[in-house]
C-alpha cells in the first residue's frame, strides 16, 4: 500500500513538473511582460533596469530553475495588473471557488446517484422517463445558457434569488471567507451551484443508470436472487455497490473539472472566485496569474486522481490485492 502511494506521488510530481514547464513557457512566448509594466514613454535605461530587476536577462535555464524553485514554495511572482503576490490573490479567491465547486459536486452526487438508481430500478415508470428526458437537456445545454435561463427565471422574473455575487460572507479562522453561514450567502450559492452542477448531475445519473442496468443483468445478481435474498438487499447491498465502483472514478474526475471549469459559471454570476480572476488575467495578459492558476488546477487534478485510486481500492477488494503487491 505504501509503495503504491509513493509510486503515485512520484508520478504526480512528474506530471506537475511537465505542467510547470508549460506554464513557464508562457512567460517566454506570450508577449513581453516588461512591455506590460512600463508605459510607452519610459526611457530605455529604465526599461533595461526593470528587465534586470525581474531577472529577465538571465539565461532561460536559470530563469526556469528560479521559477520552479519559487513555485515549490508557492511563490508564483507578482501579478502584473494588481502588483500583488499572485498566491495572495489566488488564496483570497480560492474559498469562493472551492465552496461553489464542493456544493455543486455534493448536489450532483446527492441528486444524481438516487435518480440514476431510481431510473434503473423503475425503468418503465413515468418518473424514470421524465428524469431521462430532463437529463438529456442537462447533458446537452451549455452551462452559460443554463445560468442565464436560471437568472431570468429566479432572479429577474420571480425575484427570489440574487443574480450575482456571493452575498454576505463571514471570515473564519483568519483567511477563509465563507458564504455558508449567512442567509444571503446561502441564497447566493443556489443558482451558481445548480448551474455548475447540472451537467455533472445528469452525467452521473445517466452513468449510474447504465451501470446499474448492466450490473442487474450480471451473474452474481442472478445468483443473489436464486439465494432468495430480499429485493432490498439485492438492489442496495449488492447491485449498488458494484455500480459505484466505476462511478467513483468519474465523480472524482468531475470534481476536478468542476473546479477548473467554474470559469464560465463564475463569469455568468460574477462570482468572485479564481475562475473570474483567471479570465481577467487572460484579458490583461497577466501571465503570473495564468501560470499559477494552471499549476494549482493541475495539482488539484493530480491529487484528486490519487484519492480516487485509493478510494477505488477501498471499495473493490480485487484492486486492493493488486495495490498491495
Amino acid at each position, binding site marked *: 500500500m505504501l509503495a503504491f502511494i509513493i509510486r503515485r506521488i512520484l508520478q504526480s510530481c512528474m506530471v506537475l513538473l511537465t505542467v510547470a514547464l508549460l506554464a513557464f513557457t508562457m512567460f517566454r512566448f506570450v508577449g513581453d511582460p516588461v512591455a506590460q509594466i512600463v508605459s510607452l514613454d519610459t526611457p530605455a535605461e529604465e526599461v533595461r533596469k526593470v528587465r534586470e530587476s525581474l531577472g529577465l536577462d538571465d539565461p532561460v535555464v536559470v530563469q526556469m530553475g528560479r521559477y520552479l524553485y519559487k513555485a515549490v514554495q508557492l511563490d508564483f511572482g507578482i501579478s502584473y495588473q494588481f502588483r500583488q503576490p499572485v498566491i495572495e490573490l489566488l488564496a483570497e479567491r480560492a474559498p469562493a471557488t472551492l465552496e461553489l465547486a464542493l456544493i455543486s459536486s455534493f448536489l450532483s452526487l446527492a441528486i444524481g446517484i438516487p435518480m440514476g438508481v431510481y431510473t434503473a430500478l423503475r425503468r418503465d415508470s413515468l418518473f424514470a422517463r421524465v428524469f431521462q428526458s430532463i437529463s438529456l437537456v442537462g447533458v446537452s445545454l451549455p452551462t452559460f445558457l443554463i445560468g442565464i435561463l436560471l437568472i431570468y427565471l429566479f432572479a429577474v422574473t420571480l425575484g427570489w434569488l440574487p443574480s450575482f455575487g456571493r452575498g454576505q460572507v463571514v471570515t473564519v479562522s483568519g483567511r477563509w471567507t465563507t458564504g455558508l453561514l449567512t442567509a444571503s450567502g446561502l441564497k447566493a450559492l443556489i443558482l451558481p451551484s445548480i448551474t455548475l452542477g447540472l451537467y455533472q448531475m445528469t452525467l452521473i445519473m445517466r452513468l449510474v443508470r447504465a451501470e446499474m442496468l448492466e450490473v442487474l443483468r450480471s451473474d452474481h445478481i442472478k445468483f443473489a436472487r436464486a*439465494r*432468495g*435474498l*430480499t429485493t432490498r438487499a439485492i438492489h442496495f447491498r449488492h447491485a449498488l*455497490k458494484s455500480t459505484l465502483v466505476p462511478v467513483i472514478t468519474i465523480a472524482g474526475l468531475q470534481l476536478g473539472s468542476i473546479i477548473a471549469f467554474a470559469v464560465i459559471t463564475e463569469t455568468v454570476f460574477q462570482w468572485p472566485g479564481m475562475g473570474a480572476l483567471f479570465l481577467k488575467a487572460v484579458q490583461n495578459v497577466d501571465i503570473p496569474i495564468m501560470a499559477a492558476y494552471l499549476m494549482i488546477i493541475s495539482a488539484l487534478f493530480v491529487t484528486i486522481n490519487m484519492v480516487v485510486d485509493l478510494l477505488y481500492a477501498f*471499495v473493490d477488494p480485487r484492486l486492493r*490485492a493488486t495495490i498491495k503487491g
Partner: protein
Amino acid sequence: MTTLSAKSPVLELRNLVVEFVTRHGTLRALDGISFSIAPGEVLGVVGESGAGKSLTGAAVIGLLEPPGRIASGEVLLAGQRIDHLPIEELRHIRGKRIGTIFQDPLTSLDPLYRVGEQLIETIRTHLSVSEQEARARAIALLAEVGIPAPEKRIDGYPHEFSGGMRQRVVIALALAAEPELIIADEPTTALDVSVQAQIIAVLKKLCRERGTAVMLITHDMGVIAETADRVAVMYAGRVIEIGPVRDVVKSPKHPYAKGLMGSIPALDERPERLLQIEGAMPRLNAIPQGCAFHPRCPHVMPRCHEARPVLAPVGAGQVACFLHEVGQ
C-alpha cells in the same frame, strides 16, 4: 416409477409451458414438460443447448427473464403449487427450500463481499439465527464442502479462491438453509476436467447425507451416468424420454436418445466412428408439426408428420415416440 410414486415427490412439473412473447409472435420454449423428482433422488436432465434444460430450472424457481413466462401448467413443490405465488412468497422458497447452483462459479459470487459475508447473509435471510450462530454454521458448511482451513478462508474474498473452490462455496451457499431440492445448472461445465469429478463427488455426498433431491442439468453424459438415479432427455422444449439411468444410458428407446447416447465415446471399446445425428435441432420459431424430431429421425413414419407423440410408459420409463406405442 411405481416404486417412486409411493413417496410424494419433492418436485412435480405438470404440463409446464413456457412462452416468450416477442414482437415477432409467441415462441413456445417449453412445451408441456412433465416429470417429478422423489425425495433424495437425483434426476439428470440432458439435451443439446437450447433444448430448454436451463429454462426448466429457471421456471421452477420463478426466475424466468422477461419476456419469458409460464403460460400454463403447474409446478408443485412437495405437493403445493408454487408457479403463481407472489414474488415475496417465492423468494422465501428460493434459497430456503430450493437451492440453486449455476454454471460459472467465477461470476456467481459477489466480488465485493467476503465469502463469509455472503454465506451469513444467506443463512440469516432464511433462518432466524444470530450473527455468531450463522458464522459458525457458515464455517461448518465450508468444511463440509471440503474447503481447507474454513475458519480462515471464510474471511477471504471470492477472487482469492480458485474456480473449483469457488464452486464449493457456491454449493455451500445453495445448501445453507437445508433445502429439499437443489437445482444444479451445469455445475461443472466451466471447471477444469480434473476438478469436475471432485465437485460432483462433493455435491453427491452432501445431498445423499441430507436426503436432498437434485435436478442435475448437464450435457455431460459421464456425470449423469455416475450421479443420476433417473434421466430425462429433452429435445426442442419437450421431454422425449425419461427413465432409470441404466435403461436410458445403456438401452435408450427414443431414436434421438439413441443418437445422443451413441455420440459418447467409450473408453473400453475399439475406437469406431461415433454416431452422429444428421441435421440440427430446430429453432424455436420453426419447430416442425407433429414430432419435433421427425425431420432428423431415421425411423420416420407418415404419422410422425401430423401427430405429436406423448410420453407413454415403456419398461421402467416413459418414451414419447410412435415406435414404442403400446401394442406396436
